[in-house]
């Protein structure tokens, strides 16, 4: 059933959509256009002279081994966060998708981390993992493991991956659970009657029917890991030690806001923007195909 409301004229409809358009323009299009423009310029050290330099910022960016390292690091980071968040979300959803005592409570508890602000979750993880004051951190240190994420880049990376994935597990949990529950029960029962058991049944019946959900989640998780983890990473490591946890987004902030290399930072933003557009297009195309099926 489709309900349509037809407005006469164009003034009222314009008025009604104006707030959204204004917000989108002020907070998205305007900064994006400024970034695109600045990516083509170079500002002197005092911020007085702005020179148009064409694509020089992009050329030096892709020639920079540090930037290439950041790309690789970000890819690895995204893959790790996505795999961990989706894997855990799926395991928990499968566990929750059956007759359980206190099922509703369990589900609510699962969904909570999603509501925790990134900086707060970062602080929680620091309070757990700090080698001096953290519960887990001190446990590791007293048991002979040289745990210090402020010095060891790999440990720092492990920590930001854990913290970032933890926040996203809830989201994956909700969607996988919804996906599982939308599989007709009779289909699973038919598979049982056909003799399919356990993992085989899951692999041949449940997983294929879940795949649209999983694909959607992979894209969402990649976007999350690439762009929405800044708050978590910045609060925990500020990209350190020695850039070990500096993903592309963190690098944009570091180069532009901290080191005031506005041209390069803007160029990086434009590259990221292209990345988001590509991922979104992928997702739209896929969702379009699914609804068309």
């Amino acid at each position, binding site marked *: 059933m489709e309900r349509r409301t037809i407005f006469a004229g164009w003034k009222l409809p314009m008025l009604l959509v104006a707030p959204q358009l204004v917000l989108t323009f002020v907070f998205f299009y305007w900064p994006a256009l400024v970034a695109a423009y600045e990516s083509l310029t170079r500002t002197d050290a005092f911020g007085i002279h702005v020179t148009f330099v064409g694509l020089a910022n992009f050329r030096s960016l892709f020639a920079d081994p540090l930037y290439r390292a950041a790309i690789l690091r970000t890819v690895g980071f995204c893959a790790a966060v996505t795999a961990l968040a989706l894997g855990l979300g799926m395991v928990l959803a499968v566990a929750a998708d059956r007759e359980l005592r206190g099922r509703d409570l369990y589900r609510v508890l699962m969904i909570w981390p999603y509501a925790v602000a990134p900086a707060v979750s970062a602080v929680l993880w620091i309070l757990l993992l700090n080698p001096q004051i953290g519960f887990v951190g001190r446990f590791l240190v007293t048991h002979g493991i040289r745990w210090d994420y402020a010095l060891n880049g790999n440990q720092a990376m492990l920590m930001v991956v854990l913290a970032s994935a933890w926040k996203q597990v809830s989201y994956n949990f909700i969607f996988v659970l919804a996906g599982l529950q939308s599989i007709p029960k009779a*289909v699973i*029962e*038919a*598979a049982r*009657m*056909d*003799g399919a058991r356990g993992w085989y049944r899951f692999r*041949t019946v449940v997983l*294929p029917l879940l795949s649209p959900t999983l694909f959607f989640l992979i894209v969402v998780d990649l976007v999350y890991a690439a762009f929405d983890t800044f708050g978590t990473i910045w609060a925990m490591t500020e990209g350190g030690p020695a850039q070990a946890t500096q993903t592309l987004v963190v690098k944009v902030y570091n180069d532009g806001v901290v080191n005031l290399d506005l041209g390069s930072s803007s160029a990086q933003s434009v590259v990221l923007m292209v990345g988001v557009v590509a991922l979104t297009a992928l997702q739209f195309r896929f969702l379009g195909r699914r609804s068309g*099926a």
Partner: protein
Amino acid sequence: MATLVIEKLSKNFGPIEVLRDIDLELASGEMLVIVGASGCGKSTLLRLVAGLEEPTRGRIILDGRDVTPLDPSVRDIAMVFQNYALYPHMSVFDNMAYGLRIRGLAKPEIQRRVQEAATLLGLEPLLARKPRQLSGGQRQRVAMGRAIVREPKLFLFDEPLSNLDAKLRVSMRAEIRRLQRRLGVTSLYVTHDQVEAMTLGDRLLVMHRGVPVQLATPMEVFDRPADAYVAGFIGTPAMNLLDATLTAGGTAARLAGGALLPFADGRRPGEEGKNIIVGIRPEHVRIEAGGMPLAIDLVEPLGSETVLLGRLADETMLSVKVHGAWAGGERTEIVIPSASLHVFEGKSGLRLDPAR
């Protein structure tokens, strides 16, 4: 080919008793139809046999082996679901082959069996299609095919025709019956449709509120319903059930309106004034001058016959089925022939047979 024995099977969902003490015995190759209104427990009974639900008490013995504790995957039972439950991501061929692959059959054997079932059901041109590209009737066939290729000991049908349109339902009904006869597989068939039940079953099990009420051949259920519930449930239009009392000596029934209906087949036990229910099928009521007056409220022409819905003098509803079209007016006179009378106890509703 296998026998099925069900002993004292009961199922509770929490405090609610859904099934109580079901005893059942199916001969090899027999088709038993379980019929009842929705909520009578018939689907639960089927799911217990399938193994999809665990019984609270009782045993299920298939082909001499107690399968009660077994997982459905190892019971060697195939089930056709109401909404077909095909695997949406698999082709028709793979839907049918799925269970065979799990059993580790060789490829040529799988090919042969699926091909055979497809030929039997007219599915050959559709083998490469996905379920969503099939019509309801075709999906139904695939679901049947998936059960057939397994060559199981027992077929279970859970209202398999209820999602089809009326015309298709009639032809699929005949097809199912033909297939089941030909393959000779012992079958349990659940339905709420009494026409399906009458036409498909070697025997019928009529259920009411979790309890089996009557287990007999379709014609026996029709001719000698075990109680007033079965009498009203089987047959269209439903049997007229009229409140009455027993006369002295148990030789006749006195209707609430005062009319006297003598019993043709003997006296019923009980004292004078005992509450009874007399049943008369609409097709047995005769239109005859000099009988009880009937005011006709509604005429339902069905083509070859017509159903009249009317009221007796005391406002008791009564339906009458007559051949051909109804040419009479809004009033007529009817006679209830003694030979076609069914008598039930007023309180329990149980059939009241003549005393010997």
